[in-house]
């Protein structure tokens, strides 16, 4: 089983839709959780850190369920500018940051 598994996507949604990305992990030692956004041929950029049960930043909400080893990222009112690959990332105290496969989102005007 992969350490981090994400919905394969791709997601193609109309502007204004709500879309949610899901991520499950197998390493119970994972202590920190992040969502990164990666545009085509660019570097990953931190979108949100998730340190507790969840947090919200505008249209983005990061949710964490440690008991079920599950992380999700709902996006409300999606915009064409949200089109990108979204990467779920897990961190451990011994330094490793492990990336999920990523989910491609395309938002159509």
């Amino acid at each position, binding site marked *: 089983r992969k350490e*981090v598994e994400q919905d394969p996507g791709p997601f193609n949604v109309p502007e204004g839709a709500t879309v949610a990305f899901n991520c499950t992990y197998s390493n119970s030692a994972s*202590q*920190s959780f*992040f969502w990164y956004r990666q545009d085509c*041929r*660019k*570097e*990953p*950029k*931190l979108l949100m*850190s998730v340190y507790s049960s969840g947090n919200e930043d505008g249209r983005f909400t990061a949710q964490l369920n440690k008991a079920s080893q599950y992380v999700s990222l709902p996006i409300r009112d999606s915009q064409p500018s949200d089109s990108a690959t979204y*990467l779920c990332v897990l*961190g*451990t*105290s*011994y*330094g*490793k*940051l*492990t*990336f*999920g*496969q*990523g989910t491609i989102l395309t938002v159509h005007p």
Partner: protein
Amino acid sequence: DAMVIQNPRYQVTQFGKPVTLSCSQTLNHNVMYWYQQKSSQAPKLLFHYYDKDFNNEADTPDNFQSRRPNTSFCFLDIRSPGLGDAAMYLCATSRIQGIEAFFGQGTRLTVV
């Protein structure tokens, strides 16, 4: 202003010819990572440094080496590049282990 800088942005090297990629940071972060990302795949961790402590991933080929002469700089050496080593190489830093990392723009390596 860029805080994690990778040079060069694009590198073309010949099959078997050693190549060095560089990364510098102005964040004074303790941790530096090197990732390899191939097309349509997730970034794969090759190794990371916590200060001067080097941590190699078990499945990183011996062909890949790294040096960190000081806090600000880290190098990735590929001793004998093969066609399968063509990828984007990403350097990232974080203040301590296991927290959010900040990436440079990457070096896209082509092997001919």
